[in-house]
């Protein structure tokens, strides 16, 4: 990737990737131009967005998941998110950023130029020309952190901590970095196919969702599941978590404009509208099917909507966001309701929410994307100025390719990593440790005392 002292402004992340890559990927690479002039407003918003996205993981996701498990596992569940934040913050600086956003090697991976963030100071990334590359590094770090943390919902309450730590390390290195490179870093999905993913429908949600499915199948069920009811030990924590996810997601989606202007504003509106509509959709589905709307349903619906609107946020209108949100609420509710029929134990419904919601969002982006909202679409999609609704079925094909590629890569990859990790250190906690709870057995701690 090239470091330009560019002054072009307010183009979406993805647009610049393609534009830059299609044009002259080779030229500017080595030469460090005169210190780039950054925009203080864009920088301010991206600093804020970085903080917001970290807040999504800690404490947002930690609480969302932590409230749903049983008392004896709450600390181990909080640890899943917290440890991902710690671990990946460091590996991202050491090598993760470079593999993901370093100059492209064969459309597959970044090279080692930015290891240890060498060469980053004083430059801008071509993907974010108006802010310091140092800021782009940390903004992207927060995405790299949350993605594996999302998977942790599937293996909650039964994974040994050493295996967890190793799995996350490997997943982040061998699945996340390549995939993010393919879609955003100049790899084949973004730059050659021209699929649209505004803020991480494939990279973050489908990837974590399909990996969650594979992990749940590989690990097996928790002791007592599904005969024994395992009600959430503290739903207010989950509601706080969902609320902070909602608020933090503005950094995730509106931040993906990598600038402080109308595109960010539109993504912000769409994000909020999608979350809200999906909460209403899920509540309505519940009310109809189970007789009562629930607080957990509202919270889960909002998250499902946020997932589904993620790939679309910078490409569609607010009215389209309502449709996407309502669809996400209904579809994810249904997916989660019928889970028991399939027999796997995806403890906190990562599959039903992230895999299903992410796929839905990716495909509906292919329907609703429009140049009216984002004039960079023709460049990004290699010529189409909108989705199915605007008469261009071609975009759907691109989206489908991206989705299927993500399923295959992450599904197979996660399976191989699980086998590997299990060979090194056992994944499952022994039954007595699981019964005693992971807090005591893995961490020698108890969450609540008097």
């Amino acid at each position, binding site marked *: 990737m090239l470091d330009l002292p560019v002054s072009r402004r307010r183009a979406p992340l993805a647009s610049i990737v393609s534009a830059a890559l299609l044009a002259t990927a080779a030229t500017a690479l080595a030469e460090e131009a005169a210190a780039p002039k950054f925009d203080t407003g864009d920088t301010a918003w991206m600093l804020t967005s970085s903080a917001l996205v970290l807040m999504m993981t800690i404490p947002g996701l930690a609480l969302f998941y932590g409230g749903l498990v049983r008392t004896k596992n709450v600390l181990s569940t909080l640890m899943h998110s917290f440890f991902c934040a710690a671990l990946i913050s460091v590996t991202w600086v050491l090598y993760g950023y470079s593999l993901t956003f370093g100059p492209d090697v064969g459309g597959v991976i970044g090279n080692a130029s930015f290891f240890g963030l060498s060469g980053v100071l004083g430059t801008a990334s071509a993907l974010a020309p108006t802010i310091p590359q140092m800021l782009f590094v940390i903004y992207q770090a927060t995405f790299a952190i949350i993605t594996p943390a999302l998977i942790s919902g599937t293996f909650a309450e039964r994974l040994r901590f050493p295996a967890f730590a190793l799995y996350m390390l490997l997943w982040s290195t061998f699945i996340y970095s390549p995939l993010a490179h393919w879609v955003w870093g100049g790899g084949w999905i973004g730059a050659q196919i021209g699929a649209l993913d505004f803020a991480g429908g494939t990279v973050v949600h489908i990837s974590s969702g399909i990996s969650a499915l594979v992990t749940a199948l590989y690990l097996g069920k928790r002791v007592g599941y599904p005969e024994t*009811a395992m*009600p*959430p030990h503290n739903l207010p924590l989950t509601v706080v978590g969902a609320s902070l996810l909602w608020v933090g997601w503005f950094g995730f989606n509106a931040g993906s404009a990598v600038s402080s202007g109308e595109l960010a504003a539109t993504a912000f509106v769409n994000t909020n509208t999608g979350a809200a509509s999906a909460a209403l959709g899920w509540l309505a589905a*519940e009310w109809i*099917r*189970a007789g*009562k709307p*629930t607080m*957990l*349903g509202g919270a*889960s619906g909002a998250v499902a909507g946020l997932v589904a609107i993620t790939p679309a946020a910078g490409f569609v209108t607010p009215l389209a966001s309502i449709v996407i949100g309502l669809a996400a609420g209904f579809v994810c*509710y*249904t997916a*989660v*309701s*019928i*889970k*028991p029929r399939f027999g796997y134990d995806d403890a906190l*419904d990562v599959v*039903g929410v992230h895999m299903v919601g992410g796929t839905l969002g990716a495909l509906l982006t292919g329907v609703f994307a429009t140049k009216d909202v984002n004039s960079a679409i023709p460049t990004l999609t290699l010529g189409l100025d909108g989705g199915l609704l605007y008469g261009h079925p071609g975009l759907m094909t691109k989206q489908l390719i991206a989705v299927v590629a993500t399923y295959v890569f992450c599904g197979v990859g996660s399976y191989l990593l699980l086998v590997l990790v299990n060979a090194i250190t056992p994944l499952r906690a022994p039954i007595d440790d699981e019964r005693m709870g992971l807090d005591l057995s893995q961490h020698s701690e108890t969450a609540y005392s008097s």
Partner: protein
Amino acid sequence: MKKIEAIIKPFKLDEVKEALAKEGIQGMTISEVKGFGRQKGHTELYRGAEYVVDFLPKIKIELLLQNEQATKAAEVITLVARTGRIGDGKIFVLPVEDVIRIRTGEHGEQAI
């Protein structure tokens, strides 16, 4: 001396406590328990799944009393804690051999 253990509906506690106080009963010990009985539980929802919760919250009152007071107390509780609907609870009367007041070391009826 008798020990009375009464399992009642939680919202009746205040009334029962006051009625017992009116009888001159000056001490009691309570705890939160869960009861299972003829009163059926409720269904809870969890992301599209339903599960039945059998155990309902109850309050257990423990009372150490002289024999007559015990009879009286059981009557009062039966009266006051009653709503007439399933799940009102039970009163158990158990024999007691001794009572000690820790502060003074007194034994027996003195110690109640």
